[in-house]
């Protein structure tokens, strides 16, 4: 069964308009179909399949992050067209479409205005290559559509070469009949032609507004019809919707007659920048009319994505393995961290940390790790590569003076283009942000540098980013795992600092790390990946009995030396205990767990103290 055939049902149904509840029914139908096992894997994904291989007006899915929310727009939900030859009036449906059929009767009293909103969506920033690859492979396995299109590719290129010279409108003219998409041949020529009419120079001045530099992939304007309030900025979603790449949408400001612009008030409302941001060429930024969106808890393709029975079965089967996988991962990380077992332990805890709730302004569960004493010479870079191999989403921010002064970390509202210009801190939940402070050199931070550092500090302490709206700031909570690598103690705050104590000093660091990495089988790495994503999602509780024990312990510790343990330390130890339990697959805190947490925290503290006294002795 192919989903996009279904899609065509919806439009004729609308035209007859016999049943007012058809809209709800359509949604029900799609949701029902997609809930069925594997059915969602039949839908081609915009993330994997190049745009010009996808049929316009077919059902596609898109795994993305909501980067910006545009203003709501009113569209013709139902409109009437007049056939010029027969003078017959036909009611048509404008939902899930960008463009009307020709001959719209603007004065018709049957016109129904409806509201929808546009979200600007980008692929999940910092998605690790392995995650992309795996989801691509799993998609290619089941999607038949991608296989047949390339065979026709050559012919379609020839066709549109001709079309380029002639009027591109000619093609659209026979589009009058409602089922224009029935003709698959035309479909294919249309899509690539819009691709080629927007050559590279066009895309260069069109900023797709990805949060991270060097990102690739399609950005998408998603038209949302239902449940507008349930979506938030920076949500990660898997959107199922109807793809629309009508070249009519590609009309750019350039070809507008300036005199016309002056006289027509509706045109002059938008600055060219705004037009470019809100109406980019459909070939570069396709439109997607959302039928159904599923919020993603994670973007790890190795895990079942939906919280179904499927998943719980998967979880319980994996729980058994958890302890052993943890041991293997720990060993692996110990190797990576040059034989430092304690640091490896902390790194592991950091990787499964997650802000699970907030008490008024206080985010609970965050665990920012500062690995100090990192060897220089691209060690951190390699370390990042290894982290990247393990987590589905990550980004390495090299904190060199230049990047701190020049890079835009905090998203800023551009009122001229009326969009939110993204910054590197606009990240999806549970992204691993790797701050490489070893790159920092002496010099002066300018005002934007100071602002960037402040933003990073806020991110670490409060797990929030204050987006710059020029006249005011707006606070967006986030959930980002921050790992800071530095030589000495980091200048940024952190929940926990671990000085790295290498046990081995390999003569060639690169080679050493590469061999460690190569030694792991893919299946092993995959296990680690599942482990890290899964441990994060587990529930956790503390029994009254253990609560009591912890209290007693705290009082005892304070009795000996009130300075040694503060409330902050208790906070941290509780987080460590939580992560430690979860990392072993235990969902309640046991006495042992607490003791272990205390123990490793003590080890860590003695190490930092040692470090301090060492530094203190230095002249």
């Amino acid at each position, binding site marked *: 069964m192919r989903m996009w055939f279904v899609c065509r049902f919806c439009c004729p149904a609308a035209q007859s308009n016999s049943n007012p509840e058809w809209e709800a029914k359509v949604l029900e139908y799609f949701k029902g179909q997609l809930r069925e096992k594997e059915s969602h894997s039949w839908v081609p994904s915009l993330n994997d399949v190049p745009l010009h291989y996808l049929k316009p007006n077919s059902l596609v899915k898109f795994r993305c992050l909501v980067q910006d929310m545009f203003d709501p727009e009113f569209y013709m939900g139902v409109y009437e067209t007049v056939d010029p030859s027969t003078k017959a009036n036909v009611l048509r449906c404008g939902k899930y479409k960008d463009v009307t059929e020709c001959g719209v009767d603007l004065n018709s009293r049957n016109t129904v205005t409806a509201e929808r909103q546009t979200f600007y969506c980008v692929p999940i920033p910092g998605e690790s290559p392995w995650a992309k690859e795996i989801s691509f492979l799993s998609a290619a396995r089941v999607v038949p559509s991608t296989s047949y299109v390339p065979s026709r590719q050559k012919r379609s290129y020839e066709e549109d070469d001709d079309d380029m010279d002639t009027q591109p409108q000619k093609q659209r003219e026979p589009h009058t009949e409602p089922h224009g998409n029935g003709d698959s041949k035309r479909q294919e020529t249309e899509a690539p032609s819009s691709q080629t009419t927007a050559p590279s120079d066009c895309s260069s001045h069109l900023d797709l507004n990805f949060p991270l530099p060097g990102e690739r992939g399609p950005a998408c304007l998603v038209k949302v019809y239902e449940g507008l309030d349930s979506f938030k900025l920076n949500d990660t979603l898997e959107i199922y919707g109807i793809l629309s790449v009508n070249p009519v949408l590609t009309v750019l400001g350039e070809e507008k007659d300036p005199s016309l612009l002056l006289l027509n008030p509706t045109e002059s409302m938008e600055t060219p920048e705004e037009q470019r941001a809100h109406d980019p060429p459909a070939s570069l930024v396709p439109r997607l009319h959302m039928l159904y969106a599923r919020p993603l808890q994670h973007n790890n393709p190795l895990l079942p994505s939906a919280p179904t029975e499927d998943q719980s079965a998967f979880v319980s089967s994996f729980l058994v393995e958890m302890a052993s996988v943890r041991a293997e991962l720990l060993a692996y990380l110990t190797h990576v961290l040059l034989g430092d077992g304690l640091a490896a332990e902390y790194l592991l805890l950091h990787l499964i940390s997650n802000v699970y709730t907030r008490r008024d302004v206080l985010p609970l569960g965050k665990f920012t790790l500062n690995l100090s004493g990192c060897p220089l010479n691209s060690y951190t870079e390699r370390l990042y590569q290894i982290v990247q191999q393990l987590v589905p989403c990550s980004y390495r921010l090299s904190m060199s003076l230049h990047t701190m002064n020049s890079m835009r970390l905090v998203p800023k509202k551009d009122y001229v283009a009326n969009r939110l210009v993204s910054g590197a801190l606009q990240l999806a939940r549970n992204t691993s942000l790797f701050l490489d402070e070893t790159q920092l050199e002496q010099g002066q931070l300018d005002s934007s540098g100071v602002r960037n550092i402040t933003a990073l500090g806020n991110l670490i302490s409060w797990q929030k980013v204050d987006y710059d709206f020029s006249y005011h700031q707006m606070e967006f909570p986030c959930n980002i795992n921050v790992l800071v690598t530095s030589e000495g103690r980091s200048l940024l705050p952190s929940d926990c600092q671990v000085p790295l104590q290498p046990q081995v000093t390999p003569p060639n660091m690169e080679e050493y790390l590469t061999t460690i990495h190569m030694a792991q089988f893919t299946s092993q790495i995959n296990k680690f990946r599942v482990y890290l994503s899964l441990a994060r999602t587990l529930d956790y509780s503390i029994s009254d009995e253990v609560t009591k024990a912890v209290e007693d312990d705290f009082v005892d510790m304070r009795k000996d030396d*009130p300075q040694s343990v503060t409330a902050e330390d208790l906070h941290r130890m*509780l987080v460590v205990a939580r992560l430690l339990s979860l990392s072993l697959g235990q969902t309640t805190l046991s006495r042992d767990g607490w003791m272990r947490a205390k123990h490793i925290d003590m080890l860590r503290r003695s190490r930092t103290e040692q470090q301090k006294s060492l530094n203190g002795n230095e002249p």
Partner: protein
Amino acid sequence: MSSPTSTPVGSKRSRDDIPVTPSSDGLASPPSQRRRGQDSSNGDLPAMPTSPATDIASPAVHDTSLFSSPRRSGNFLPSEVDMSSPLMYGTPSSRVEGTPRSGVRGTPVRQRPDLGSARKAPQVDLHTELPSADGAVASEQAAGQKLVIWGTDVNVGTCKEKFQRFLQRFIDPTSNEDENAGLDLNEPLYMQKLEEISVIGEPVLNVNCSHVQSFDADLYRQLISYPQEVIPTFDMAVNELFFERFPDSILEHQIQVRPYNALKTRNMRSLNPEDIDQMITISGMVIRTSQLIPEMQEAFFQCQVCAFSTRVEVDRGRIAEPAVCRNCNTTHSLALIHNRSAFSDKQMIKVQESPDDMPAGQTPHTTIVYAHNDLVDKVQPGDRINITGIYRAVPMRENPRQSTVKSVYKTHIDVIHFRKTDEKRLHGLDEDSDQKLFTEERVQTLKELAAKPDVYERLSSALAPSIYEQEDIKKGILLQLFGGTRKDFSQTGRGNFRAEVNILLCGDPGTSKSQLLQYVFNLVPRGQYTSGKGSSAVGLTAYVMKDPETKQLVLQTGALVLSDNGICCIDEFDKMSDSTRSVLHEVMEQQTLSIAKAGIICQLNARTSVLAAANPVESQWNPKKTTIENIQLPHTLLSRFDLIFLMLDPQDEAYDRRLAHHLVALYYQSEEQIEEEFLDMAVLKDYIAYARTYINPRLNEEASQALIEAYVDMRKIGSGRGMVSAYPRQLESLIRLAEAHAKVRFSDKVETVDVEEAKRLHREALKQSATDPRTGFVDISILTTGMSATARKRKEEVAQALKKMIQSRGKTPAMKYQQLFDDLRGQSEAAITKDMFEEALRALADEDYLTVTGKTVRLL
């Protein structure tokens, strides 16, 4: 219905259809030619852009100019129709509304592009219109003389009559709007306003919609639903009334009615397609204004051959250029004469949702607003405004050559009335600037809460529940959130009295000071959070910058000004540079901010409470030192804080246990349990907002007595030891705190309980911060002069000892610095630090006894 009625109406409609279906062009031409013929009669008149000459012979001109561009759904039948048709609107005078009788004649009508500049899509085409018009006639005949404007239920006559009655009779004795200042509240309000117009000559009548509603709900409904038809009717009514009363007044143009405060006030988010073409009031913040756009209303064409001229109205941004001159039949001979065409001013304004109205986690929406004529340039970017206007939607046209339309409407608001919500802040009267509306139920819940005896404790424990204990500090902050009563003594020359409570938290690092600050910042609507490390003086106050767009110098306000009426949270107060701190002096007592830079000299209001947090200089609080020594802040600044709290680690077992319990609970309690335990943050917010807005407690007799006693007591403590232990500033603090406490109870009177609590809290804070570590006494001079009385005495002694020593040496004009220091040390029995020695030297230098140059000390 007679045929003349339908033809012109039809023609108007079909003209609109031109761009869509060019075939209808033919249909349109005959009537439009007729119109041109009519226009040509006054075509020789000098072209006055916005005020066509008024002539009794050309009522049609008025009519078309006033309604030159309403939506063409036949709402207004052109007046020529009225004249010829047997159907009439109300009284004859209303029919020729532009020029009724007497004085009106001399006053030109001004176009109202705000009501009709943008045409609406749903128009009726010729086929469907005729039968429905007949239907209207039929119903009219059935219901007697009840004709309504097409498409609405508005009868012009009745509507006008109702509005006139409203103007003549409406009285609002309880009005407290500042617009009505100086008016007699027991007289008809709007008649007084008309009188004002006759005196001032500004022909605009602002009408509060809530008045209309309370007077006549039906009229209000019509106004909201059909503003485009009803407002012109109101205009007519008001002009008739006005010129009847003041026949001799001369106005620039006829009075325009500007309704505001449509009760259907919404935020931008809740606008939906049903609001199209209705009158709405929304609030928001201006983010961009365009330059002035001269919008052509009427194009003036002149034939190059025979100088025959003609006028063409602009239709949806287009001018249909006449191809043939009707006089000499030359083709393509007509040229546009720009300076005889009629233009009107227009400005595009972008408004963004105000941050308070938004759900968390979403981006603010923006709306485009068009201001016309004299509303142009009324607002600036950054202004918070309430806009009353008509919501419009226009279909997009991608390409004139293309027939497919993008199925999206462009929406905007044609503004009728602006009201700046923050305008009053500049004037200084701002008791009710937060126009936050509370529902009845909400007020009820709040009052119930206030009636509880332990409301003070409840609220203070609801404050930052994640922070453990520190009850007194939370209570202090709670009182700060409520603030005192604002008193104005400017008549007697003392200016405003500070009502805001300032609090300083100092203490060990890691005692969740920042967390408290963050919490407060998140709680109050106009809070600002800055860190002393990262902020400069200009960042706090205001700076002048060049606007990138207009190239003008503009004043950008900083955190302190932005938090006017709110709380400015300053973290790391001790790390602030001295110059930055110095600006706080003025803000924290006078509550204003004077700026003199780049040619801009002004004084801004900064009635902000300051909540600051400072760390001790030596990273750990040294209990052996005074507060001043610990945090190294100038005492002039410290004395401006009403309450200074120390947040120290109490180091006691029972406390530890409770703390541990609290923290562990934090880590496993579910959301629901948390909800049960504490007051909702939203309730707390509303409670504070309500109290701040509506409760203004005053001291009663006993409370004043109690305050006096308290002050006298405080003075007494010190006088026993020969020190001043309290200053009037402390008394003022006490009053503020007592008032705030009364506000917490929702009480209009400050009673003895409030004073008791204020005293207690003040004492607690003093005990923590103003205890002299050497003697153990509370010594207010630590905070007011920066030095405890004993320390001062000590300093004096050292100076005297040094002087004596130098004198005992005899006549040595110069001495070595180091040697002198060593000698003094040897001589004195108490340890003398270098600091003390230097201080002593300085003291002697001040007495002109000696001078210190480098390493040598010279006697004078």
